[in-house]
């Protein structure tokens, strides 16, 4: 199964471990990833607001790169996924816009006809691998790991894209966590916002919002959190010390990227998945994964 693969900016910089883990897990899953090297940033939230034309062109160019390879596109970032879905929607709904973009892309001998299927890694697991096959591939069930799924926003809202009346009803991560052998918990922060998108100019909103979510996960008994978005991860993990200072209490909740959690259950080692690159220590998770692995080997 072959995919054009768009890692986004975070997974190539501050969350490079996510890119490493995705490639390793993809290999285990039998996914052949063609990384789109010349793909640009999708513009995060900022470009789409101040320069819609530039935003659409950058995103449609990424879709055109995948279409040139005649491959579906796999993403690993919530915001990139929504940006690409939005750009695709604008492209197919506005003939004048699509004509203008293709005019610009023609300079690079690229053309988009609107056929690229966009899919986040989370959806690929269900739609392309399938639950039954995934269960077969789980060689190291993460029994004993109580995990809090943190969806973030752009994989479950807006309703226009994802169709939920109430985005809290999304259950894809919890169902997956169960397949991997974990025990998912219910807590108030599941589909809340991490505040990443204003953090570059003022991080106090991110610190306050995410503090509530981590605290609620910890109070609910989570020993780890897992997120399908590197932007959420940056705040949950990278800002956790500042969040602890703000709350006046220790949290110490390790936060995994989704492919890392999957990788552990598929038998990859914490080292192979770059678990040591996180700010909050992941030793507890590595211990649980290692213990289960040893028990499975003994059986």
């Amino acid at each position, binding site marked *: 199964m072959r995919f054009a693969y768009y890692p986004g*900016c975070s997974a190539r*910089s*501050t969350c490079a471990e996510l890119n490493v883990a995705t490639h390793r897990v993809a290999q285990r899953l039998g996914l052949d990833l063609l990384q789109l*090297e*010349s793909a*640009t*940033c999708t*513009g*995060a939230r*900022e*470009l*789409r*607001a*101040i*320069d819609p034309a*530039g935003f659409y062109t*950058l995103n449609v160019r990424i879709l055109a790169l995948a279409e040139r390879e005649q491959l579906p596109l796999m993403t690993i970032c919530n915001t990139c996924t929504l940006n690409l*879905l*939005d750009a*695709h*929607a604008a492209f*197919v709904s506005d003939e004048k816009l699509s004509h203008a973009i293709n005019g610009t892309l023609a300079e*690079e001998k690229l053309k988009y006809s*609107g*056929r690229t299927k966009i899919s986040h890694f989370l*959806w690929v*697991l*269900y739609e392309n691998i399938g639950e039954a096959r995934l269960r077969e591939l789980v060689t190291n069930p993460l029994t004993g790991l109580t995990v809090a799924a943190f969806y973030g*926003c*752009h994989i479950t*809202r*807006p*309703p*226009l*894209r*994802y*169709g*939920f*009346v*109430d*985005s*809290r*009803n*999304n259950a*894809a991560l*919890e169902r997956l966590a169960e397949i991997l052998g974990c025990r998912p918990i219910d807590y108030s922060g599941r589909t*809340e916002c991490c*505040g990443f998108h*204003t953090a*570059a*100019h*003022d991080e*106090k*909103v991110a610190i*306050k*919002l995410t503090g509530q979510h981590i605290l609620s996960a910890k109070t609910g008994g989570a020993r780890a959190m897992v997120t399908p978005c590197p932007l959420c991860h940056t705040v949950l993990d990278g*800002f956790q*010390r500042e969040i602890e200072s703000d709350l006046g209490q220790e949290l110490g909740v390790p936060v995994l990227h989704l492919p890392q959690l999957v990788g552990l259950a598929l038998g990859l080692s914490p080292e192979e998945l770059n678990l040591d*690159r996180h*700010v909050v220590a992941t030793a507890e998770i590595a211990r649980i994964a290692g213990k289960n692995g040893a028990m499975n080997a003994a059986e």
Partner: protein
Amino acid sequence: MLEVQTSPRDGASRIGQAEHDDTLLARNSRIAPGASIVVRIRRQSNGGDRYDTFNVPYRKWMRVLDALNWIAENAATDLAYRWICGSKMCGTCAVRMNGREVLACWEAVEPEMTIEPLRNLPVIRDLVVDRTPFENKVARLEPWIERPDAYTGFPEPLSHKQMKDASKALDCIGCMCCYSACPVIGLGDLTDFAGPAPLVQLGQTALDPRNSPVKVARSLALTGIFNCVSCYKCEEVCPAAIPIVSRVIEPLKAKAAQLLPEHARHSRALRRIIAERGRVDPGALVLRVQGLRAFGRLPRIIRLLLRGKINPLRTLFGTKTTAAEPARRLLGREVSQ
């Protein structure tokens, strides 16, 4: 015929929807006539704060408002709640039902409901909130049109396209669902963010092409609009289905970036970095937006350095990538001012 990629009903992006009755049809048909529903209502008055529970006989197509009316008529005649039209026009009956902002007149009851007043506004009594903070904010934003030129008479040469975003904002019924759902407003005075509802009110005139840019700039300067975190909570709960983020807040941000460029430092810096490098190094973004202030987080910088998450050379000078050239070509020109 090409189509917008929506999430198929059986697709992975909708997992959870079926088992949680997350469709309008499912919500409207989950209780059998004759059954009893359990309604817990948060009651606040004179410093008291408690939840009262009522068993309400279900009638077919029963709305939250019907349940409240039954309780007020049969079980708690002192229950305070507000409604006028009963048909999604007046915007006065919004409450939180099971943690979600809804119009009582337009929402089907659930078998067990906890009804609370809206958040982020003072409670007067029970489910009635004081809208004064919102109204004061809106008044301060001067949501009206000041023409830069003399009125040319009727009809004015306006196209649908020119009014496409303002017309969405004009669908607002002022119910405050979005204001209650907004997580940034929930943080109180931490930022100067005006919040979704005041911005939608402002958008009705600020996105109107007849308005004076000077006037629009004066209003936008008071909104703290770049503190919107783009979480889409407001869009999710809007009973008028206004795409608040994409059709009101983002167009207002675009105007702010043109008229008040110093307010849009973050957005403009991100655009410049993409145009120069093709991809964004978060460290470079923070450095450009915050300047020397960024070094106030020295402990974090050291932590990230130790984990190999940031690379000072890459932050300062960038790395050569094949994404840079196309980005430069596509974005090289500054957005017209």
